């Protein structure tokens, strides 16, 4: 590597480090639009469905059928809360097994009735806890992925805020994966990573830089297909504009995906995920 190249890489890396933390803060901004903010703006009608038909209903996951630009679409998304009361009610957007099972109910319905599925990802991770484990958290996350992987209808996912860990990926299997400009997508929250690798949650900023969770990095790594622009300054500055940009992007993807035969879509969906990763042989 030449000196110039090394210098360039160093500068690029240093620039990216600051960007990572900035994105983490924007992705978690308390005024950032959440799933319901978007659904209220982009759907002409939306009926929310509740309950997993077994254990209960999880307020951290919104699921239902909406009318989106002239067609019925199944929407599933994580939901955070804005004030303390709602945050607690929504468990900070951390879904329980019931939430993923509710999502699966709606995926199945969409597959059966032939509606496309759109998922909105915004979670710090799946709910940890004794109850979540005894009710089968890992199995619910795995089966939700598997169901999306095998659906006959088009699936579009978009990371609209925080996409952290298996809790995000559980509803992140799609034909096309989008990511908003200031969203983050990562294997573990920067705090969780710092607590484990640096033994200090205070090192979250360094962990964020190392994890490279930004939309640009995810696009580079081939994890997302395209980046959805946000209003200048971030989605929290203008919910209406942000919803419009998101709706346009999702609508374009659905139009394209609708032109493929179902079997082909499922094959391509699997192929897309099978090509992710970096290794040598």
């Amino acid at each position, binding site marked *: 590597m030449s000196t110039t190249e090394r210098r360039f890489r160093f500068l690029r*890396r240093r620039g990216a480090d600051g960007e990572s933390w900035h994105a983490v803060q924007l992705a978690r901004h308390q005024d950032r639009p959440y799933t319901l903010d978007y659904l209220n703006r982009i759907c002409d009608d939306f009926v929310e469905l509740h309950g997993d038909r077994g254990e209960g209903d999880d307020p951290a996951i919104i699921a239902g059928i909406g009318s989106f630009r002239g067609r019925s679409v199944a929407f599933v998304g994580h939901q955070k809360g804005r004030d303390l009361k709602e945050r607690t009610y929504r468990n900070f957007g951390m879904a329980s097994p019931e939430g993923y099972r509710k999502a699966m109910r709606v995926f199945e319905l969409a597959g059966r009735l032939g509606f496309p599925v759109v998922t909105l990802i915004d979670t710090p991770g*799946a709910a*940890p*806890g*004794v109850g*979540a*484990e*005894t*009710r*089968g*958290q*890992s*199995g619910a*996350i*795995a*089966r939700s*992925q*598997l169901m999306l*992987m*095998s659906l006959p209808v088009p699936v579009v996912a978009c990371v609209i805020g925080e996409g952290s*860990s*298996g809790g*995000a*990926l*559980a509803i*992140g*299997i799609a034909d096309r994966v989008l990511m908003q400009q200031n969203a983050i*997508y*990562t*294997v*573990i929250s920067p705090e969780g*990573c710092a*607590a*484990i*690798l*640096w033994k200090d949650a205070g090192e979250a900023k360094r*962990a964020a830089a*190392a*994890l*490279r*969770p930004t939309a640009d*990095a*995810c696009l580079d*790594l081939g*994890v997302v297909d395209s980046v959805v622009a946000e209003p200048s300054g971030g989605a929290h500055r203008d919910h209406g504009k942000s919803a419009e940009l998101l709706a346009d992007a999702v609508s374009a993807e659905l139009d394209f995906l609708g032109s493929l035969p179902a079997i082909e879509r*499922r094959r391509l*969906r*699997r*192929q897309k*995920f*099978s090509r*992710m*990763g*970096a*290794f*040598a*042989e």
Partner: protein
Amino acid sequence: MAERISVDISRVGDGDDDGRPEEPAPSEAPRARNTCPSCRSHYREEEMVANLRVCAHCGYHFPVTARERIVQLTDDGSWSEVARDLISIDPLEFVDSKPYPERLDAAERATGLHDAMLVGGATIGEMPVALAVMDFTFLGGSMGSVVGEKFWRAAELSLDRRMPLVSVSSSGGARMQEGVLALMQMAKTVAAVDELREAAVPYISVMAHPTTGGVAASFAALGDVTIAEPGALLSFSGPRVVKQTTGETPPDDFGLAESNLRHGHIDMVVPRPELRDTVARVVALLSGGQPYRRTPLLPDLGAQRAVGRVISGARKAILGRRNEHVDD
């Protein structure tokens, strides 16, 4: 998550010449390694190997490396490894207290493996299967791009020859050093399982201690039949994370194989001395052919005693695990 559970690292030679996993070399510190954490019984290395690394006194299941697991499960001389030259690269140029490539080098030197999974074809009870076996001693069995690709190749092998896939998992979860690409390996393994399901090829998942995080929440949870070893920790979040984030004190049996069975998350808990025959029976039944005829189980007397004591010792084994969690 990988760092949470400490397991001492055994040194295993890299004798791949005949494609057969080498017998593990005696550990450098056999005393610590071969002393039962549950009942403090101590064994010679030969006894450990003969007993399938199960404590003959109390039934505690010691960790098993991938190579030794393959020896335990498959018919002699039937194993042929595929995709053995896959190696991790460093897509994020990840540095924590050490650069990721240095961690990989150290793990490779300590284990003689290129990554945390071995895949290949073998026969179990003379029935051909594709095998994907994880090794916890390689960076805590964490799943990065190589593990994902290897699982994918194992599924391909299984589809090509239309033989069942058997996985043995032992992992702390996704490999943080590969960032979001590690997360996507969950999706990749799920895609592989979806291929198997579409082609109606059976998939059997065996979960060993520990199977947590991204591995528990992807391929390991999706077996047509799921089997766990006694006392194994199987959970999405580990007990320490639960305690830290929710303030709840996890119960003694939190996430153990036995409580997973009670809550309906797995099909059975099978002691290691019976694992090979159980897998063979399931493979035979899922393949729709003749039932598997049990061969005389265990030639070794010590191991036979272990079978008898495993059940009565299960409680002690659980207590042993619990102590481990408390210690960390």
